[in-house]
């Protein structure tokens, strides 16, 4: 694709301009690299350098206000794997991630199919379902804390039906099995946080699926119908498989949001009683910046990074590989 030389009839000026352009070209290339360089240096330092530095801190003894970089090996990590709070965080993150991604995916897919039925007022529905995405997780947290407050909020309605959930103050663990220090299972309190997160992020999967559906031709659906497929079969057997790349993207992006979530939980519930709504992001923040356990905080951060990297690195490599051949 690099500068094909245009053939012209007049010979000598062409050679001259060719030489000139070659010189020009290399000068331009130097300029291009020069303009890219600051960003590359910034990313190298602020992303990769700092990650390395955090890794170094995580292996150190810096658990007081005064930095102490003496090497302690994996001590901080071993501490976490026996720590009631961190083990609770792992359990909560797993439960939160599964519920959050599952609901966002299904709701987004179903709603996108609904909105794709050429219905009237589609733009209004779309705008209402999208708008929470423009808000901050902090705003979401503050508002849902009020709505799901056990003594007010939706409970005022639910009371009439004889149910009064404790929402995020509930300390029960569903299907709880005592395993070592913690009860493994699904903390009921997580459901409240999932509701708020789903409210905020469903618009994302809806937008992605809608864009995908718009890319599928009507003829394809028509052909499937001609072959005698019911409307349900058309979607289940033809459309949804075609949307698989979008499903993968949504899962990956939701997974990385869920694994590093901090602001929503910090502003809505905090760690909760018995850490039923605690997550690594909140623990890292509190232990590092409120408790001065820098090395422990760094260890939590490194574990978070590795978990996210498991999803993101293959995704990046695969989607970039598919992309680089084009334009």
């Amino acid at each position, binding site marked *: 694709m690099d500068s094909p030389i245009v053939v012209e009839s007049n010979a000598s000026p062409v050679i001259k301009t060719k030489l000139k352009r070659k010189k020009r070209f290399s000068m331009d290339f130097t300029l291009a690299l020069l303009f890219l360089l600051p960003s590359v240096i*910034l990313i190298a330092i602020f992303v990769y350098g*700092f990650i390395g530095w955090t890794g170094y801190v995580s292996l150190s003894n810096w658990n007081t206000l005064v930095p102490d970089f003496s090497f302690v090996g994996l001590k901080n990590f071993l501490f976490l794997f026996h720590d009631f709070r961190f083990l609770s965080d792992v359990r909560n993150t797993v439960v939160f991630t599964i519920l959050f991604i599952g609901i966002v995916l299904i709701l987004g897919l179903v709603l996108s199919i609904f909105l794709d039925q050429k219905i009237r007022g589609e733009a209004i529905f779309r705008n209402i379902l999208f708008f929470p995405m*423009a808000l901050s997780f902090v705003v979401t947290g503050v*508002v849902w804390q009020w709505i799901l407050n056990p003594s007010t909020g939706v409970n005022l309605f639910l009371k009439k039906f004889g149910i009064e959930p404790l929402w995020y103050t509930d300390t029960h663990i569903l299907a709880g099995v005592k395993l070592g220090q913690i009860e493994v299972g699904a903390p009921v309190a997580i459901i409240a946080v999932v509701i708020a997160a789903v409210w905020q992020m469903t618009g994302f999967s809806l937008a992605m699926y809608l864009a995908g559906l718009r890319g599928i031709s009507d003829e394809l659906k028509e052909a499937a119908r001609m072959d005698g497929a019911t409307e349900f079969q058309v979607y289940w057997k033809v459309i949804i498989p075609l949307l698989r790349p979008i499903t993968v993207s949504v899962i990956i992006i939701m997974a990385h949001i869920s694994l590093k979530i901090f602001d929503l939980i910090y502003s809505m519930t905090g760690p909760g009683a018995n850490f039923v709504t605690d997550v690594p992001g909140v623990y890292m923040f509190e232990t590092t910046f409120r408790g001065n356990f820098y090395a422990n905080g760094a260890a939590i951060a490194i574990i978070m990074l590795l978990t996210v990297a498991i999803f993101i690195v293959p995704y990046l490599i695969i989607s970039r590989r598919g992309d680089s051949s084009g334009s």
Partner: protein
Amino acid sequence: MALRRLSKPMLYLILIVLCLLFLMPVYVILVTSVKPLDQVTLSDMWKLPTALDFSSYQVAFEKLAPNFLNSLYLVIPATFLSALLGALNGYVLSKWRFKGSEILFTAILFGMFIPYQSILIPLIQFLRNIGLYNTIPGLILVHVVYGIPITTLMFRNFYANIPFSMIESAKIDGAGFLRIFYYIMIPLSLSGFVVVAIWQFTNIWNEFLFAVTITTSDQQPIMVALQNLSGSQIVQWNVQMAGALLAALPTLLVYIFLGKYFVKGLLAGSVKG
């Protein structure tokens, strides 16, 4: 087809109910925030106020105004700088490719997905050392740097759609790197600038982790102040809800008036373009 026609009313019903559920928090914010203090009792939460009282907005505004300004001082330069940087990077990485530029781009993109907890400790040490800790310029620097991956990605995808032949003919006319950028790429990517600016504006305005760890008290952006407001026991719910609305207003307005571009940015953030 018959099945489809039959289920249409059902479809509308489900959509309307869901939309009402989605709007419920808005109702709660609006209704609670205009209630006089004596009506903000737990049991009357869902009831409409008997009289409109905007004093909660006055209280919330007094408490949040300085932080609102901090956020503006933060978000305007940070958005401008990161859009400019992203445009240059996207231009180089789409039109001046070199050996290894694709790998470099992927390495840059990784920075967009990392949990920022994994760089916070060194970042704060670094900001302390260069004297930018607890300052708005420090936060601007942070947002510009960590905005590089997403803005580069968005602009690179925009510029991938501008044909090489256009660049080639400009080169033949004697235009160099900067002239092509200034006279061809920028004019052709104005909508790209809008998308990226809206995206960065929304993200930086809404951001909390950097804000809460890098700034204290009078330097804090709006979201930290809102969180403090809601964490305090003495602040009434009507003030909290008014505060939430004030804090959300700028990004909500952007969404209402420029929602199309916001959604474009959202889709552009999923790596493939």
